[in-house]
């Protein structure tokens, strides 16, 4: 900056020559007096000279305005008084001078301190000055007060953060509305079936055509409708439990092989033995056992849903350097997503028509795994029919973004 000023000085002096301040120098080079007047008139910048040992040597009006010292109060004082106590203690004043010498100049934006102790955000340029022999004669220092600009930038940033938060909240609200709308649609359908069966019974009773076989038949349909409603309500309950205990995983050390084995055994007890094959490596890991139980349960249910009675669902558990991997592989029809995200609420593959449940099981599994800081992915098997769902769980839950 001081270099630029030296370069600009002749032009400035020509202007000065037309003013009442006359330069006595015949070739219009700036004499010290004219230059001092010029510098002194600048109010937006603190411009002053520093001695080689770091003391204030000159002072202008800008310096007085920005820093609050009069010339007689500050000349001869070390520049460390302008620094914050932390920066002064860290040796920043001397460091900055050395950096200016080393690189030919030094610039930074940092907090500085006014006479009254208040801080301002300073944009500084520090330039070493040398005589004709190249010996250091001191430093030129130009400082600008950017506190207001910084405050407005801070304000802008704050606004941007708020905008982002608002748009995230609106997104969550839209997702919630969509969820409720689909959930209500899914529930209306079995209620409609149930209502219609009741109406059919009433009509026949009125007409006297309600024989035992008709009644049995209609009761059976009503039972089918309520079974579907039970499934749907169970899924909705799982989702609401998910948001209830949102931030509270009850983490304990668990032998994952036992947990996964227990879930597989439960399915076998329900009366479909031989359809689930397990290969489980011992892994002690920190998880919320009841939630991971649900993840494994949902994955097996999903695999069975898309398998024929003759197919086997394979479950493997393996230890990794930083956690555990559970893989559930079926021999079903495989994945054909057609752009649908399986792990979103109501996400179902394009090749899924015969739906049981609402399509919330994988969403719930995803949410639980995500909350543990793990990942869940799905892919078709490389050879043969079917798909593999792969869950990675870290050794202990790690913080992750909400959602």
């Amino acid at each position: 900056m001081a270099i630029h000023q030296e370069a600009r000085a002749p032009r400035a002096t020509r202007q000065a020559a037309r003013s009442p301040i006359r330069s006595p120098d015949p070739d219009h080079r700036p004499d010290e007096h004219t230059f001092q007047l010029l510098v002194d008139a600048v109010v937006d910048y603190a411009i002053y000279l520093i001695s080689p040992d770091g003391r204030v040597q000159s002072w202008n009006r800008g310096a007085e305005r920005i820093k609050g010292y009069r010339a007689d109060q500050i000349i001869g004082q070390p520049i460390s008084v302008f620094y914050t106590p932390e920066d002064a203690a860290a040796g920043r004043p001397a460091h900055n001078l050395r950096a200016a010498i080393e690189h030919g100049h030094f610039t930074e934006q940092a907090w500085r301190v006014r006479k009254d102790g208040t801080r301002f955000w300073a944009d500084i340029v520090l330039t070493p000055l040398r005589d004709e022999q190249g010996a250091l004669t001191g430093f030129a220092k130009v400082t600008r007060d950017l506190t207001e600009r910084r405050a407005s930038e801070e304000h802008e940033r704050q606004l941007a953060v708020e905008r982002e938060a608002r748009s995230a909240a609106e997104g969550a609200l839209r997702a919630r509305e969509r969820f409720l709308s689909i959930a209500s649609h899914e529930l209306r359908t079995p209620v409609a079936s149930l209502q219609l069966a009741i109406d059919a019974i009433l009509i026949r009773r009125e007409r006297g055509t309600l024989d035992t076989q008709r009644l049995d038949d209609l009761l059976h349909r009503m039972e089918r409708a309520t079974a579907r409603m039970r499934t749907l309500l169970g899924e909705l309950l799982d989702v609401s439990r998910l948001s209830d205990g949102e931030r509270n995983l009850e983490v304990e050390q668990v032998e994952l092989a036992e947990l996964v084995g227990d879930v597989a055994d439960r399915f076998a007890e329900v009366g479909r033995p031989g359809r689930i094959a397990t290969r489980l490596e011992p892994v002690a890991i920190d998880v919320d056992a009841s939630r991971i139980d649900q993840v494994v349960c949902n994955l097996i249910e999903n695999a069975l849903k898309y398998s024929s009675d003759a197919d086997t669902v394979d479950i493997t558990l393996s230890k990794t350097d930083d956690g555990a991997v559970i893989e559930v592989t079926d021999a079903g029809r495989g994945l054909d997503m057609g752009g649908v995200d399986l792990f979103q609420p109501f996400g179902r593959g394009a090749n899924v028509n015969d739906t049981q449940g609402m399509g919330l099981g994988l969403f719930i599994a995803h949410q639980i795994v995500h909350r543990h800081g793990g990942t869940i992915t799905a892919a078709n098997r490389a050879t043969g029919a079917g798909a593999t769902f792969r869950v990675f769980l870290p050794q202990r839950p790690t913080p992750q973004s909400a959602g």
Partner: protein
Amino acid sequence: MTGRGRILVVDDDATLRETLAEILSEDGFEVRGARNGQEALEQLEEWRADLVVLDLMMPVMDADAFSAAQQKAGRAIPMLIVSAAPHLLEAADRLGAVGVVAKPFRIHELREQVTRGLGLRQSSDSPE
């Protein structure tokens, strides 16, 4: 009560489709069922219906695709929308349906709409 008209019930929910078909047959209509728009189109190739009772959201072929295919085939069979979806009136407008019934419903609501859709007089309000 025979020969009141032919109705095709298109719904992917088997319980609802079967029960509704039964009730309407006993009301004197000739009724057939289809699980989706595609099956409905196939039925209509050989069996001319007077009214299609149509669910909106179905796998394979939904109501919009079915309606478009009908137009392409040059068939103009009145459609009655019976659905659990929201914004039913908008959908009815879009498809040019003769009426809408929101699921769940009581059978008399549906009967009224069927009667109207077929251009029949309701037995209860025809004293002459």
